[in-house]
């Protein structure tokens, strides 16, 4: 009970502050809709509007981008983490690309990939890959060579070593990379939907801003935050289940 109260408290505090600001008269009430107004808008968009489609489109894009990004980040991060001498050369390159804001790449992506669905997914892929690969290789580089030696002294072959030692030690880092990549992908969503998107939470926000529908913008932002948070929770639950052996669970 106390736990629930403690978890709810900061959220209630933020909503209360928001409400206070919107009714205080310090700002033009037209600029800050109140929580009930936003709640009502949410309900309207959900039942009579396009919100379900927007959520589905955006979630689909994030999943596709993250799936592709992690599919590449896991093997690449693994190789970079395992072969430490390669890493010294590749590291600056990775940091260079990671530092580029995806939004700056949009013009190039449009030139090379057009304005269809692939272009949006490529932006999300880019963000997920560079976030995931760094988490992956930093994690792999920390794996103690001791476990490899122990397995060798017990008679493990190369393939047994990989399946029975390296894979289990890699799983927690894969889950962390997935978490980080999902977070980054949601944060990049609006940018990716700057590319001529008709539907999606980012598109919803942009269309609303063209018509100055602040309540719709609030709904879009809150939806992104809540979905991202829910996914993070889901992965953490997964981690608790699959890597319960870890000292400290992410």
């Amino acid at each position, binding site marked *: 009970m106390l736990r629930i109260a403690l978890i709810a408290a900061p959220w209630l505090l933020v909503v209360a502050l928001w409400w206070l600001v919107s009714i205080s008269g310090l700002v033009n009430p037209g600029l800050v809709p109140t929580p009930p107004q936003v709640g009502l808008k949410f309900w309207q968009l959900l039942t009579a509007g396009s919100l379900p489609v927007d959520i589905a489109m955006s979630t689909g894009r994030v999943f596709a981008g993250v799936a592709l990004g992690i599919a590449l980040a896991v093997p690449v991060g693994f190789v970079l983490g395992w072969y430490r001498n390669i890493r010294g050369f590749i590291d600056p390159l990775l940091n260079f690309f990671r530092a580029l804001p995806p939004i700056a790449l949009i013009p190039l992506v449009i030139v090379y990939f057009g304005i269809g669905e692939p272009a949006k997914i490529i932006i999300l892929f880019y963000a997920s890959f560079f976030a995931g690969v760094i988490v992956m290789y930093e994690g792999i580089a920390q794996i103690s060579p*001791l476990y490899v*030696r*122990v397995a*060798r*002294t*017990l008679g493990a*072959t190369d393939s047994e070593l990989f399946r*029975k030692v390296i894979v289990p030690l890699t799983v927690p880092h894969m889950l962390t990379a997935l978490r980080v990549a999902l977070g980054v992908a949601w944060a990049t969503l609006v940018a990716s939907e700057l590319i001529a998107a008709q539907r999606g939470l980012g598109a919803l926000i942009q269309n609303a801003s063209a018509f100055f529908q602040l309540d719709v913008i609030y709904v879009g932002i809150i939806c992104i935050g809540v979905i991202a948070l829910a996914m993070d929770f889901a992965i953490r639950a997964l981690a608790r289940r699959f890597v319960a*052996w870890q000292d400290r669970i992410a």
Partner: protein
Amino acid sequence: MTTAAPVRIAFDHVSVEFASARGTMRVVDDVTYDIRDGEFVSIIGPSGCGKTTMMNIVAGFVQPTSGSVLLDGAPIKGPGPDRGVMFQEYGVFPWLSVRDNIAFGLKLAANRTPEAARDEIVNRYMRLMGLADFADAWPKTLSGGMRQRLALARAYAVRPQFLLMDEPFGALDAQTRSAMQDLLLEVLAAEGKTVMLITHSVEEAIYLSSRIIVMSARPTRVREIIDVPFPYPRQEALHETREFNELRSHVRELVMLEYAAQARQTTPAAPRAADDIGRIRRGKPPGGAS
């Protein structure tokens, strides 16, 4: 121990050099000794002198720069399940339960064991090492002494002919340490093995071994090889005998000279070695819990 027992491990003029910032560093310097079948040999010497390096040669992780180490007369080609290794850091697999840690080696192709036999071996070592109540526990929940026993059980399960132990009891408190020593002697009495044990404790070396090899400061050489004349099985009361104490004084003297020599070397290992001398003066195992 009859001298007629065949030589199992033969160090022949072995030297090891490592590349370092200032050229090459010689760690092991022209070391020659034999370990015979069924012997329990303890290696004692200052921190950083090269003891682990010698063990790593036998384990198959390091090649001598010159000289040779033969295992049953043949050169060593990498690690293998015939040589069980207990690493200083134990290396218990954190992602496997206690039971699966012990069973790990038995499930490898090199020691493939039918499931029924495997379960029997695992259960026997869990009982022997006092781990039966923790069969399904994660290693993160175990104490240091229990992890140490788990590492020992895992090494034992694949029935190695050799047991190579690197300061296995160094991190344990005095009571646990003494219990582990007796457990080790008990297990060895049941299934004879050839043992190489690295330790800083003169008492431990005398109590457990049939021979003690005292190593010098780095680059390490054989300072003296000492026969321990007490018959097995050995009991705790051995510690109180005059013969034990005389031998201890002799070995301690030798060891202290080498620890002091190592401490004089201006190396990163020096503070640790100086600390060890203090501990030895106080009659305590260096590096261990006081």
